[in-house]
């Protein structure tokens, strides 16, 4: 086994997250899929740091975590305000800008 397996695992997780974004309808679940994709990228960064023998990649993963925390806070607030206005958390119902 080599560290490449970690990269393959993270590619698989990223793909599952991307498919989830395409398939799911609940806005919160879509958001969770985005979090999964961010986590997969973090695993890639940590693995590359390990392959390189430095911790620069870990620092990048740390910054990704900070940005993800900020993004989650704002995104969930947006979902909540949309839900308050339209009584729905489905991404299909938010189509006012469609035509």
């Amino acid at each position: 086994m080599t560290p490449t397996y970690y990269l393959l695992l993270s590619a698989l997780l990223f793909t599952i997250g991307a498919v989830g974004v395409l398939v799911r309808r609940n806005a919160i679940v879509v958001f969770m899929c985005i979090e999964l994709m961010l986590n997969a990228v973090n695993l890639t960064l940590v693995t590359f740091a390990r392959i390189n023998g430095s911790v620069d990649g870990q620092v990048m993963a740390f910054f990704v975590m900070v940005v993800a925390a900020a993004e989650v806070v704002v995104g969930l607030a947006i979902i909540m305000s949309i839900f308050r206005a339209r009584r729905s958390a489905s991404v299909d119902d938010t189509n006012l800008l469609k035509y």
Partner: protein
Amino acid sequence: MTALFLAQAGAQATVSTGEAVAFWVLGPLAVAGALGMIFARNAVHSALWLVLTMLSLGMLYLVQQAPFLGFTQIIVYTGAIMMLFLFVLMLVGRESSDSVVEVLRGQRLAAAVLGIGVAGVLAGALTRAIAQVTPAQPLDPWSAQGGGAGGLGRLIFSDFLFPFELTSALLITAAMGAMVLAFTERHAKGGKRSQKELVIARFRGEYERPSPKPGPGVFATSNSVATPALLPDGSVAPESLSELIESTSAAQFSTERKQVSGDDPKPDAHALVGPEKEGESE
């Protein structure tokens, strides 16, 4: 071709047996959590599956000699972010499970095909790019250059100092944005009126009538919504007629109105039998 590169890479093993065992336990757990998140119909179940994935990833960071990041993953992601998700789920969409109906036809099949394609491209590119690279020996996390809090902090506060300062601006902006977006007018000044203010406003004529509207079923033979309320003179209160139930009309209740208002023929006091009622057969 991928297998070829994997076999080529396998020649240079720098991974200990314990790490391999941990990977083969945690990796499938992470994938199972991700798949469970996609396929769970209930959003709360999706969140719990995602917690499993994030915990497995945190353990994988620990295994890869990144203890600070591993614990941060567990604390920040599974502790803070996923609990935030669960809070919002309980507030917003707990009962909203996804429908099985495809809105766009063939979307799921297309998504699956695209997913397999992306996974293949990523895996092929990664293995091809890594094939000639000899992985370095894992760093000791407790050394000054390792992945512990000391090594990471040294780097953050020297090379990455400016980005680190920028994250403080990002975090405070995110907090302000969340407060602005999630704010409701209800508790603000001049938002919701108290009962006293509402009564005063009603008697000033700001509303249609000073009293609340009559409830359905008042003075009526049943208390269903379809039954209108009757005013003291026996006429139907038009405000009590539901707009949704169009079949309810004043004419439908004409007999009841006549009975209440006393317009209908009184029973003959000298008759030997009482008035024949409709629907009763003797």
